[in-house]
């Protein structure tokens, strides 16, 4: 939708920058704000920004799942956990991990940026342009990309059904374990 035509792609660029900047600001706010509740709300904003990124990358399914799982469920859990802590508005006091963590995250960010910049991203467009992929494969790839959901479903419930079910069993075990832990004796 947004990729067609230069003018529309300009708009896509604008949307990208808006989402990117706002999610970075929100992510910074999560770390820097003292009020834990507001920090959690900013975490939601940053989640939504990531969902927007997924939309721009034409992965609508992932975007919606991001909203559904992270915004709808995980962030509520986080807020619940925050409500159980003391002094929500002051946040946690400064501790000795501050400096090491700052150094570690700076290093991590530097490495991530370096990797992102230096990698030769072999995107689909580039691959097709270079002629590395056969014609019929291209058509198939385009078909898959136009509607990914049946493919995801097929992969999850046919090809990798065992892994899928094992994951659900693990989740069930976690659920039962949590129940057993909080049960009053």
């Amino acid at each position, binding site marked *: 939708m947004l990729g067609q035509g230069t003018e529309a792609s300009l708009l896509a660029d604008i949307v990208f920058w808006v989402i990117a900047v706002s999610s970075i600001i929100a992510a910074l706010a999560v770390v820097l704000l003292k009020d834990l509740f507001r920090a959690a709300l900013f975490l939601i904003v940053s989640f939504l920004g990531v969902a927007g990124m997924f939309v721009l990358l034409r992965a609508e399914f992932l975007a919606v799942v991001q909203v559904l799982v992270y*915004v709808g469920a995980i962030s509520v859990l986080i807020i619940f956990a925050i409500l159980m802590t003391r002094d929500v508005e002051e946040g946690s006091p400064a501790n000795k991990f501050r400096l090491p963590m700052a150094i570690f995250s700076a290093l991590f960010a530097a490495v991530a940026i370096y990797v992102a910049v230096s990698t030769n991203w072999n995107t689909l467009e580039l691959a097709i342009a270079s002629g590395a992929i056969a014609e019929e494969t291209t058509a198939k790839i385009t078909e898959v990309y136009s509607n990914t959901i049946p493919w995801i479903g097929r992969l999850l419930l046919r090809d990798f059904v065992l892994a899928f079910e094992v994951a659900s069993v693990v989740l069930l075990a976690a659920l039962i374990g949590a129940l057993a832990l909080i049960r009053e004796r």
Partner: protein
Amino acid sequence: MDFSETGILSFHGIYGIFALFLPGWLAYAVTCGVLAFIVINAMVMSTALYTWFERRMIGRFQARLGPNRWGPFGLLQPFADVIKLIVKEDTTPSTADKIVFAISPVILFAPTVLTIAIIPFGENTFLGRLNIGVLFLIGVTSVNTIAVLAAGWASRNKYAMLGSMRGVAMLCSYEVPMALAITGVVLIANSLSLYDVVQAQSVPFLIVQPLGFLVFMAAASAEMSRTPFDQIEAESELGAGYHTEYSGMKFAIFQLAEFMAPIVTSILAVVLFFGGTRGFDPIPGQLWFVIKVVLVLFGLLWIRATWPRLRIDQIMGFAWKGLFALAILNIFVIAIEVMLFQDGEGNITTRGMWTMAAVNWVITIAAIAIMVNVLGGKKLERPTPKPSPLANMYAEAD
């Protein structure tokens, strides 16, 4: 995403007008804004109309008249209410978290409006034909949990906090049966797009899978916190629940979102279970859609005017023990039937649908009857009264 291609009010029509004097990307953005403006205002206006409808109908259900003073049949009453709310003092509690307090009405309002973006109102009347429409719905509506929580937290009011805690527990639980109920629809329609769901309903899914419809309606009425699941507000217990401290325009936005929720829910129910725009000819599809929405709204009102509310633990129990089991049963049955009746391309014939409907109605009635009478009936029985011997103790003493 595709946009409809015909008509002056279509995306390309408006884009063409703006593209005459604006650079393309700006025209694109402005067109989106214009369409959003039209749609949001249409929704707000229809919400105003709906509040009037609801008050009149509930008035009549309660053998009263309802608002009838201002304008023809009291139609202008919502506007009078809005003017009153604007003029009212907008108070914020001194201990409240002021920023969160101010934005939480907006957080509640936005997702409700967002759902409108993907609803097919007619053959060519929709904003976006998202191929994951159903998922979008579930995802977007889950955001209002946060608004409820934020409003209750920011108010620094115990009633509000209790209301929002109940609300979060309830909204999170009821998302599960709602999603599972919609899964049944998706199974038959073989697509996540709402447009395809409508196209697949040669027989309305209400008839094909009544169990799914019942679970969906129950879960949806919990999601919008209407009776019998209105524990979030529970005006006889909590005052007003999470918006106890709100007044003025913020309160109005809460009310707007709250009254818009039934409309959105009825629209969803119509799209998912009533065949959306489908009907028979001379009446256009859009009109069919509106008629069906009003009917569903009336049904919701009817229930709201009749039934009392459940207790919070009963509501949660109902979600996990009742609705969850019914939804799983529904998926199971529908999946087996789809396997049996599906042709090679994944479509089901009308004849197959009717067969499914007959089977499903039997299963539905049997399942509900068993669930209510075998599992839930014991608590409801009333033992025969036995006179206590204490009444005659003075007589014996004499």
